[in-house]
């Protein structure tokens, strides 16, 4: 089916003796917003790292945008059209905000290959615009990221993922460190993405947020997908039951 943007089959990752991800079968339709929930250490971030090529999977298959893929690195995933906000944020501590926002995609004044001249003014202006959408307050964009507060860092990472067009956006706990206002703003950004028809995978521990934003909820438990729930057919209690293992669907988890 051509409207399936991402599909995994039997995706598995072992770290030595730790079975962090086991036999994950997953599907995401074009324009769909899906949440992944689960306990700490359930394997959510591991799942994201396998899809985006940050790590090499132990076994299993991934299809993206109609082709079977095995990205050797995040660069390739991004080129294929996957933007991600990783849990560890992936920011360069010694660079300032505009440099981080445009990291790897700098605006160029003259093209001279690797020695191209940067368009610093354009990047600064674009940065201010992008950050305004997140409502974050940053007193001096020229300060290095090292000196930003936890939430300021996170907003920079989100602004980065949201600024560039892509086929799939993955956000790993994007609002964990954000304040009330900023969280609301980021949720607005996600809604805009929905309106624009972009697909999204959102990892979050915030039940309200998940029910506000997504179409479908996937629950991970002990490295396995134990539930695949349409938002309309479930509620918070139900999801918690799956997370804690009180309930279990007839998925691969049956093997547990």
């Amino acid at each position, binding site marked *: 089916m051509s409207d399936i943007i991402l599909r995994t089959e039997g995706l598995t990752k072992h770290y030595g003796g730790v079975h962090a991800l086991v036999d994950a079968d997953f599907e995401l339709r074009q324009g769909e917003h899906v949440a992944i929930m689960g306990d700490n250490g359930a394997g959510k971030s591991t799942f994201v790292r396998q899809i985006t090529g940050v790590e090499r999977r132990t076994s299993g298959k991934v299809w993206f945008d109609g082709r079977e893929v095995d990205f050797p690195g995040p660069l390739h995933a991004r080129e294929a059209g996957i933007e991600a906000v990783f849990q560890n944020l*992936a920011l360069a501590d*010694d660079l300032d905000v505009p440099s981080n926002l445009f*990291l790897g995609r700098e605006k160029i004044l003259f093209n001279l290959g690797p020695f191209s001249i940067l368009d610093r003014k354009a990047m600064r202006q674009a940065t201010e615009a992008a950050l305004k959408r997140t409502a974050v*307050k940053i007193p001096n964009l020229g300060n290095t990221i090292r000196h930003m507060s936890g939430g300021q860092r996170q907003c920079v990472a989100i602004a980065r993922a949201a600024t560039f067009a892509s086929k799939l956006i993955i956000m790993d706990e994007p609002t964990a460190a954000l304040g009330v206002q900023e969280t609301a703003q980021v949720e607005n950004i996600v809604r805009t993405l929905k309106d624009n028809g972009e697909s999204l995978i959102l990892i979050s521990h915030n039940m309200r947020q998940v029910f506000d934003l997504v179409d479908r909820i996937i629950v991970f438990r002990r490295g396995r997908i134990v539930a695949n729930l349409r938002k309309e057919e479930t509620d918070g209690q139900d999801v918690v039951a799956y997370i804690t293992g009180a309930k279990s669907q007839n998925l691969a988890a049956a093997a547990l």
Partner: protein
Amino acid sequence: MAQTTFGVGGLTYDHSKRQLPQELNVLIALVLIVAAFELLGRALLGDSFLLNTRDNVDTFFNQARLQIIILQVSIVGIIAIGITQVIISGGIDLSAGSVVGATAMIAMSFAQVATVNGNPNPKAVFLEQGWVDLPVLVPVLVGLACGLLAGLINGSLIAYTKIPPFIATLGMMVTARGVAKWWTKGEPISFPTEPFAGIGKGLMPVVIFLALAILFHLMLKFTLYGKRCYAIGSNEEAARMSGINVERHKVLVYAIAGLLAAVAALVLSSKNLTAQAGMGVMYELDAIAMAVIGGVSLSGGRGSIVGTVLGALIFGVIISGFTFLKLDAYYQEMVKGAIIVGAVVLDVWRQRRRGTRG
């Protein structure tokens, strides 16, 4: 008082308290050291360090001393420029000095004259092959190729096998030193052609050093190349996740460092009219020290060429100042160690006072 020009979200930012450039510390250290020598000179010898005191010359400054101060660090300075960009991008290069030795030997053997004082050149390596009196471009290109090769090997090892730069370049250091000795079985090579001798004549080393310094200052500040050096040095994982081709960039960085070591080798052998297998030993340590004194952080991501140039000048002033004070050679080394440490202590201390650290 409160401006918000540089921020978003309308927060208080007192622009007047913007941090002064870090290089200022190094400049202050430089001035302090010069002043110390000037004062000591006047107190102990009744002579001036910087000003002219000879009757037969009528300049205000002691020109000869000003020149030698920068001339004697130009060659290591060229290496230090290359090492600065390596360190900024999170690496280290211990091989530079040995690459200088190997490159000098190989390049010089293509820069030989056919006859010395009417006799066939006794030191010419390729006399039999007739490769003598070649145009200066030949040894220059050969030299640059050697440096490039060494740099490419360093870079590829570091980028693709992921071994620590310290080890990759340590290996290259040992290997290149072997190559330098092997090339002529340890024999030095002398008697280069006139044009080759011109590369390092007079103040040419200074000119080349400063030109390269300006070029690389601009490159690091205003180009993609520079931005990526800082990004990779600051957080390699983040740079990779942001889609920078970290591996390719690293190869480029080390290749450029190799090229600069080759330039240093050409200037050095031309200036001395000879090439020796032992040339350049330990230059890398001096070069690294210059960079660090200039504020380049060994953990990557921070530093500038301006700082490194100032660091090099500190070295030059120290060397000339010691000779000026007629300090015993033993004490020179002891004090030099202390000054290296002192310059960096000053820098760290001023940074902390300004509250940017700890």
